[in-house]
């Protein structure tokens, strides 16, 4: 059944957005079966709530929001990861510009997987959805300061895992900080 406002039905949503939704799900979950489960769950929810979609242009963002909620709800049911497990190095911007091909995809996902879910979500929203920090705060209904702090720490952690600690022109070494 099609949405009256957008004229879109769920089959169209699947055809148009299943790849983007799956990629997003994979970045959040880190495994193929879990990503597929999460993708299917998101589309099941979309099917139930299709009437809530206001505009065709916002369909992808709407699906991403459903996906995030499904992911966070599922994570809440599991044992929480201790945030203090993640140690961040403050000085982790590589001196040399990494080429796109040099970013190891497995290493990237491994680094994302090590982040606690609240940090992972803001990181994926920033890099995958290319949201601004204000958009992230609005969509997650979090204070801007919280988003800035989580995002900055998650980004530094990601770089530390991918590129290691290297000196940079503007920063000197500082002690590591725990999340």
């Amino acid at each position, binding site marked *: 059944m099609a949405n009256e406002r957008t004229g879109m039905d769920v089959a169209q949503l699947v055809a148009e957005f*299943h790849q983007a939704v799956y990629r997003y799900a994979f970045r959040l979950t880190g495994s193929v079966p879990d990503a597929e489960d999460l993708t299917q769950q998101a589309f099941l929810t979309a099917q139930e709530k299709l009437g809530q979609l206001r505009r065709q242009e916002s369909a992808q963002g709407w699906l991403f929001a459903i996906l995030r909620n499904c992911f966070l709800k599922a994570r809440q049911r599991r044992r929480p990861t201790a945030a203090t497990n993640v140690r961040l190095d403050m000085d982790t911007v590589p001196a040399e510009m990494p080429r796109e091909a040099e970013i190891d995809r497995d290493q990237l996902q491994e680094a994302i997987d090590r982040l606690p879910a609240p940090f992972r979500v803001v990181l994926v929203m920033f890099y995958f959805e290319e949201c601004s920090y*204000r958009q992230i705060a609005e969509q997650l209904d979090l204070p801007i300061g919280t988003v800035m702090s989580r995002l900055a720490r998650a980004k530094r952690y990601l770089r530390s895992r991918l590129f290691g600690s290297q000196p940079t022109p503007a920063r000197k070494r500082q002690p590591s900080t725990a999340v």
Partner: protein
Amino acid sequence: MESQPIRDERILEALEVCRPQRDDLSDPAMADLAEQLDATPELKRFYDHLQRVDAELSIAFQDVPVPEGLAQRIIDRLAAARAEQAAARVLYETSEAPATPPAAQPTHGSRRRLLAVAGLLSTTAALLVATLVYLHTRTTYDEPTVLRDAVDFFSREAAQPGHLLSDRDPPEDHPISRDVRRLPGTRWREISGFLGCKGLAYDLPGHGDTVKATLYVVKLSVKDLKHAAPPPLPQRNTGGYCSAAWQNGRLLYVLVVRGGERDYDDCLAPLGPLT
């Protein structure tokens, strides 16, 4: 002259989260950062460098291969959910709706009779629908359907503890297959709604608290099922799941495994010495 390290965490955070192409720099919250960037060329170079790293990372984040046939599996799952809802609605309506419009101001006796008749009719209707659904599902399973539905069932199941096989024996009428490896920590539990049947599920443990595979055992005969034991390779391997089905007398065994062929093989009992 060597630059001084930036120690103001607010500036460092702003530096990380600010995206110039989104006009974040004109945001009042970024005023301090904008001021620092204007005043410190080295910080500006660092910032520009960070933006390029972020752009490369954004590209890398998008680089995820999508499994083949995903769209069709989603469509199938959505159709199954719609069918389930429709069946549930029919059952609900037949059991809830009065058999006849209520007469105006019935007496207590006639109301009781009306309720009894309505109850009888709705129960009969519900049983009829359930029987039709049951007969339909029992007679239309073939091997591909079994494998697909089993993976679907497996992926939808919430984690359930079950009984440790080492602590408590399962009911004898649904035994675990001798061809499946009895891993320490294997658990069994009762299931319903698997291919329309009740039966047992044996959960093979993975890392931590996870389940890496489940063997479903139900009393069901499946048309044209070729195997009497698990085949050496899974009959279905897609979307991160492997599955195989075999018929042993009246019992249908379906093994669903997270992962690929190697994971599937890990779940099978090792073959004895060839004689």
